[in-house]
């Protein structure tokens, strides 16, 4: 028998201490772990529940697509843009008012799923968009031919058709919006595709194949996904950056600028050439004049004076560097590749100077440039663009989508300065040389053309951004015609036609 006192338990070391305390501590750690699991459940089932359940790839949405009746899509005047029709077998399929709507509306087809607004708002259109499981589950017990909500959009069928017709056989995009509210009046991208053909089960396959194999890439929504060299339209961004940072004022003039017109501006050993406005001769240009005649030298110097950081900051305020909050997903516009050592990510001063007049590594989407014009038009506050303005349930209940602003980009005074300069660019004597065609009788138009050099032997992109009437703008737009030549060749007249039609329709 073991002698007394040698039973395990007396020496008081760690091995001897009772397990009880440790068990409790371990229990607490496990309880914490399970608590973490519960938080995880809460994250997916409460926090992220809405955006996951509304995703067009959600099984419930896909299942509903097979049985529910899709809501219609209407334009701002109540005209039907997308509706349903029954085929010979009694199955419903989608029909669109016009092929010009293919970019914003997209398509909804049993075979190929959905795209555009049809995809983005699939759950609302199919009536699966209830916020809580109660209404979603209740929906199961209503009679099967259940309708989804109608979408009321801000589009104008007239303007949309016109934009596509004016673009014609060229590839390009037009974005027109109301700068006060952000409502998108037209979003055209050419070439278009036959959305009705894709949606119709009888013609789905050939229509989709045609769209997919078309070298013009009609399935690409150029208005929001196309990234282009902006050329001189980007000078407005430089102006915003310079004025809001205080680097330049309306009176800023660079003495070396007239001489540099002929010899070229030397920046870090590289010569930047101009020569687009020989008629200014030896005039030292200030901001309004430089904008009117689209002087690259002046803007290069303004950009260098503002500095990379200033440019980058203003661009970010406008929405560069991130997708733009919008009903559809947008590509990101960029100021530069961002890999350089200079502030803002520029490689060197040459790139900064080139970016200042819209060359360099700058890439923009037409929507972004339309927003730039809208910001100036709206007194310096950038509106949030939106396509859908309301949901109308089958019972008639209307759920409005609130409008909003993306933020203040520059002061009202600075915006007014830029607006004045842009007005001169369209209405001024010298300005008209560049923006011929953008003028509208009886309305003061403000704007800027752009001729985006692509390098090589191809034609440059033809750009125009602007707004009207200049004193109290109600419409802002951006037009790009791919490889359409100078800004004034295609884009400016197209914009003029759009504006003319818009104002003609106003009461």
């Amino acid at each position, binding site marked *: *028998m*073991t*002698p*007394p*006192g*040698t*039973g*395990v*338990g*007396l020496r*008081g070391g760690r091995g001897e201490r*009772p397990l*009880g305390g440790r068990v409790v501590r371990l229990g607490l750690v496990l309880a914490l772990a399970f608590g973490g699991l519960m938080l995880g459940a809460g994250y997916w089932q409460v926090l992220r529940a809405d955006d996951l359940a509304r995703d067009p790839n959600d099984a419930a949405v896909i299942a509903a697509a097979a049985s529910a009746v899709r809501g219609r899509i209407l334009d701002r005047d109540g005209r039907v843009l997308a509706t349903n029709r029954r085929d010979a077998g009694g199955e419903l399929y989608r029909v669109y008012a016009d092929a010009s709507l293919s970019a914003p509306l997209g398509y909804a087809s049993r075979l190929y799923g959905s795209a555009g607004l049809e995809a983005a708002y699939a759950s609302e259109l199919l009536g699966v968009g209830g916020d809580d499981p*109660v209404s979603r*589950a*209740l929906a199961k*017990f209503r009679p099967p031919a259940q309708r989804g909500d109608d979408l009321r959009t801000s589009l104008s069928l007239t303007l949309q058709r016109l934009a596509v017709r004016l673009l014609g056989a060229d590839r390009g995009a037009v974005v027109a919006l109301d700068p006060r509210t952000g409502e998108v009046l037209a979003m055209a991208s050419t070439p278009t595709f036959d959305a009705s053909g894709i949606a119709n089960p009888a013609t789905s396959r050939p229509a989709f194949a045609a769209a997919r194999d078309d070298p013009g890439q009609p399935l690409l929504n150029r208005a929001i996904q196309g990234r282009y060299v902006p050329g001189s339209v980007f000078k407005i961004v430089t102006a915003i950056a310079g004025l809001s940072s205080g680097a330049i004022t309306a009176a800023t003039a660079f003495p070396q600028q007239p001489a540099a017109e002929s010899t070229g501006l030397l920046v870090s050993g590289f010569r930047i050439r101009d020569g687009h406005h020989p008629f200014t001769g030896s005039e030292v240009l200030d901001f309004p004049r430089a904008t009117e005649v689209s002087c690259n030298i002046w803007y290069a110097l303004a950009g260098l004076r503002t500095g990379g950081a200033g440019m980058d900051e203003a661009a970010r305020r406008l929405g560069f560097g991130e997708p733009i909050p919008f009903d559809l997903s947008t590509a990101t516009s960029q100021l530069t590749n961002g890999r350089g050592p200079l502030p803002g990510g520029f490689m060197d001063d040459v790139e900064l100077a080139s970016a200042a007049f819209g060359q360099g590594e700058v890439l923009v989407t037409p929507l972004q440039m339309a927003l730039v014009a809208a910001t100036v038009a709206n007194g310096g506050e950038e509106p949030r663009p939106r396509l859908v303005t309301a949901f109308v349930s089958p019972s008639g209940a209307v759920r409005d989508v609130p409008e909003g602003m993306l933020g203040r980009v520059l002061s009202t005074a600075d915006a007014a300065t830029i607006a004045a300069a842009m007005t001169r660019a369209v209405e001024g004597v010298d300005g008209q040389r560049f923006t011929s065609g953008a003028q509208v009788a009886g309305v003061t138009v403000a704007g800027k053309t752009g001729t985006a050099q692509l390098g090589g032997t191809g034609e440059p992109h033809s750009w125009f951004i602007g707004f009207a009437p200049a004193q109290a703008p109600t419409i802002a737009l951006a037009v790009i015609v791919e490889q359409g030549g100078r800004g004034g060749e295609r884009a400016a007249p197209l914009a003029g036609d759009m504006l003319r039609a818009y104002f003609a329709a106003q009461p």
Partner: protein
Amino acid sequence: MDPLTLALWAIRLAFLAALYVFLALVVRALLRDVRAASRDPAGALGRLVVVASGSLPAVGSVFPLDAVTTLGRDLGCSVVLDDAFASARHAILTFRGRGWYVEDLGSTNGTLVNGVPVAVALSLGFGDELQIGEVRMRLERGIG
């Protein structure tokens, strides 16, 4: 809302509620256990488990120990051992800070620890066996 939908949701919610009723009952049982354990703090220091005896106390009985525990036949003792060979006040078991000590209180038949008679106060460890009369008990760790 039609009666079917109402019934459906009533039953679904009732099912979820029933799950929580069960959990609540379990938690109540757990809490009762904890309270029972803490109501009897005497058991926390140590216990004596009967491993052999004449007829009483029953083998397997557990006596929780206080810091000072008297053992014997007398009713005033903490642990009453109704054994013919146990004295009225037979032995005393004390917990002094770091360990247990047993002392014989001048009993007729003496106290054995692991078979060895106890002369003076002797320290005990867990697992050691204490014999009083015909009752043999093992000192064990307390609860908690």
